[in-house]
C-alpha cells in the first residue's frame, strides 16, 4: 500500500517536472522581448541590462531553469512583470476564487447528474423514460463554452436577474479576511454577502457543471441499470423493499465506484475549463488571470499559474485514487 502510494508520488513529481520543463522551454522561444514592454522611454542600455538581470534573463537557458526550479522549491515564484508583485502572493489571492468555483461546479454536477440518473432508474419502465437519455445525449454534445454564452443570452438579455461578470458586487461594502469569499461569508453568517457571491457564481458554475452533470448522468445511469439486474437486488426486492430503497441502498453503492473514477478525470477537465469560463464571466480566478498573463507575456506569472494547474491535476488524480480505494470494500482491506 505504502509502496503504491510512494510510486504515485514519484509519478506525480515527474509529471510536474515535465510540465515545468515544457512551459519553460516554450516561453523561452517566445518572439518578443518581455523587457521591451517595461522600459520607460528614457531608459539607457544600462537600465535595460539591470532589468534583465533583475528578472534573471541574462544567463543561459539551463542555468535560468535550474535557478527558477530552485527558487520555486523555496517557494519563490518570482515577480510578475505586468503586475509588479510577488507571483506566489497573487496566485494565493486568486486561486481560492477558482477553487470555490470548481468545487461548487463539481457539487452541482454530482447532485444534478446523480439525481437525474437515480430518477431515470426509478422510472425506467415508464413509456417516456427513453426521453431522458435522448435529452441527456443532446446535452452531452454541448461544451462549457457554448453553455456560457447561452447563459449570457438567457440571463443577460431575456431574464436579466443575474450579474454577468465579477465575483462580488463592488458596491457591496464587504471586507474579507481570507480570499475564500463564499466559505468565509458562510462561516461568519454574512448571508447577504454569501448570496451575492453565489449569484455571481451561478452562471460560470452552470457552464462548467452542466457538461459534467450530463456525463455523470450517463455513466451512473448505465452502472445503475447493470446493478439493478443483479441477483442481490432481486433478493432485496423479494424482501419487500421499495423501489427507491432498491435503487439507493442496493444499486447505488455498487454503481458509484465506476462513476467516481470517471468523475475525477472529468473534474480535471472542468478545472481546465475554468480558463475560458472565467474569462467569459470576468471572474477573478487563476484561469482568467492566466489568459491575461499570456496576452501580457508575463513569463513568471505564466510559469507559476501553469504549475498550479499542473499541481491541481496531480492532486485531484491522487484524491480520486484514494476515494476509489476507500469506497470499495474489496480494495479497502486488501
Amino acid at each position, binding site marked *: 500500500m505504502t509502496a503504491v502510494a510512494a510510486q504515485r508520488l514519484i509519478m506525480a513529481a515527474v509529471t510536474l517536472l515535465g510540465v515545468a520543463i*515544457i512551459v519553460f522551454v516554450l516561453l523561452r522561444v517566445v518572439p518578443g522581448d518581455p523587457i521591451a514592454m517595461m522600459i520607460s522611454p528614457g531608459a539607457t542600455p544600462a537600465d535595460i541590462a539591470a532589468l534583465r538581470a533583475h528578472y534573471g534573463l541574462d544567463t543561459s537557458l539551463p542555468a535560468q531553469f535550474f535557478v527558477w526550479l530552485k527558487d520555486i522549491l523555496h517557494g519563490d515564484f518570482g515577480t510578475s512583470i505586468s503586475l509588479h508583485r510577488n507571483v506566489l502572493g497573487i496566485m494565493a489571492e486568486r486561486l481560492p476564487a477558482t477553487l470555490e468555483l470548481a468545487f461548487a461546479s463539481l457539487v452541482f454536477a454530482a447532485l444534478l447528474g446523480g439525481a437525474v440518473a437515480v430518477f431515470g432508474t426509478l422510472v425506467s419502465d415508464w413509456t417516456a423514460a427513453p426521453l431522458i437519455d435522448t435529452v441527456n445525449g443532446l446535452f452531452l454534445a454541448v461544451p462549457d463554452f457554448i453553455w456560457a454564452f447561452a447563459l449570457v443570452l438567457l440571463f443577460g438579455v431575456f431574464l436579466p436577474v443575474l450579474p454577468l461578470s465579477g465575483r462580488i458586487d463592488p458596491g457591496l461594502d464587504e471586507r474579507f479576511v481570507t480570499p475564500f469569499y463564499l466559505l468565509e461569508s458562510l462561516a461568519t453568517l454574512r448571508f447577504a454577502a454569501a448570496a451575492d457571491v453565489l449569484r455571481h457564481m451561478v452562471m460560470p458554475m452552470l457552464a462548467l457543471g452542466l457538461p459534467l452533470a450530463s456525463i455523470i448522468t450517463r455513466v451512473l445511469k448505465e452502472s445503475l441499470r447493470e446493478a439493478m439486474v443483479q441477483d442481490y437486488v432481486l433478493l432485496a426486492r423479494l424482501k419487500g423493499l421499495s423501489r427507491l430503497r432498491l435503487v439507493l441502498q442496493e444499486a447505488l453503492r455498487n454503481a458509484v465506484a465506476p462513476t467516481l473514477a470517471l468523475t475525477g478525470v472529468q473534474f480535471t477537465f472542468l478545472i481546465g475549463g475554468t480558463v475560458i469560463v472565467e474569462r467569459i464571466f470576468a471572474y477573478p480566478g487563476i484561469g482568467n488571470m492566466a489568459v491575461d498573463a499570456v496576452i501580457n507575456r508575463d513569463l513568471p506569472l505564466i510559469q507559476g499559474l501553469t504549475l498550479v494547474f499542473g499541481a491541481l491535476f496531480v492532486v485531484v488524480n491522487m484524491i480520486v485514487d484514494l476515494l476509489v480505494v476507500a469506497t470499495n470494500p474489496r480494495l479497502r482491506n486488501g
Partner: protein
Amino acid sequence: MDDARGGWPMSEVAPHWISESLRACIRDPKVAAGGGFILFLLILALGAPDFAPKDPLEQDLILGVTPPPGFAGAEPGYLLGTDDLGRDVLSRLIWGSRVALTVAFVAATLAAALGATLGLLAGWYRGWVDATISRLVEIWMAFPPVLLSILLVAVVGPGVGSVIGAIAIIDWTRFCRVIRAETMGQAKTDYVTAARAIGFSPMRILVREILPNVMPVLIALISLEMGIAVIVEAILSFVGLSVSSDVPTWGGMIAQGRQILHQGWWVLAAPLVALFLTVLAFNLLGEGLRRSLDPVMRR
C-alpha cells in the same frame, strides 16, 4: 462475443467490408443527420461568395444593429440582422464557416495522425516506448488545454495555421490513449499471432493488420475531434488570437456580440447557434460512425 472482434484476414474481406460499412453508415439516422448537416455546411463554406447575400466586410453605419425580420426596426434583406458596424450577420456566418471547417478538418486529421502513430507504437512495443509515451500523455493532460492552446498561439503568433498546429499538438493525446488500448487488445488476437508467426515485420502488421481494425474507432474519434476543434477555434477567436479581425469567424462574432449584447443579442445568438449545431452534428456523426463501422457492435 467480444473476443471475436475482427478475427478475419483483411485482404479477402476488405472490399466487401467497406461497401457494407458504407451502406450501414448511411442507414444510421445519427450519421444521416450529422453527416447531412456537415455536408450542407461544407457546400455553404465552399460556395460562400455565391451563397452569402452581402459582402461580409461591407460596413453600413446607418444600418448598424438592425434586428432580424419579425422584430421592430428590421430591414429587408438582412435575414439575421446586422452588427454594430452594419455588417450582415448571415453573410459573416456563412463566411465564418470557412475558417471553422478548415480548422476542423485539418486539425483533427493532424491530431489523429500524430496520436494514432504514437498510440500504435506504445500499444505494440510496450516496455520503455509505452512508458515514455504514456508519461508524455500524462504530462500533456496536466495542462489545461485552453491555456496551452492560448500559450502556443501566443508563442507562434496568431493565424489559422497556428490554431491548427496548436490543436494538433494538444489533442493528440485523445487519440493516443484510445488507440494504445485498442492496439494492445488487437496484439493479443489470433490473426496477429499468426502474422507474427509467418514472420511479417512489425511495421507491416501494424499497418496491414492492426490499423484497419482500429480504423472504426479512429474515424469516430476524428469526427468528435472535429467538433472539439471548431470550439477551440472559436475560443481562440474569442480571446483574439485566431485570425486577423477582417476575416469573419464565429468566435470573433461571439466576442463582438458579447460587447454589444444589450443592443443586439442576435449578433451573439447567431454564431452561437451555428457553433452548437456544428458541434452537435460532429458528435452525432462520430457516435453513429462508431456504432455502424464496428463490425462486432453492428447487430
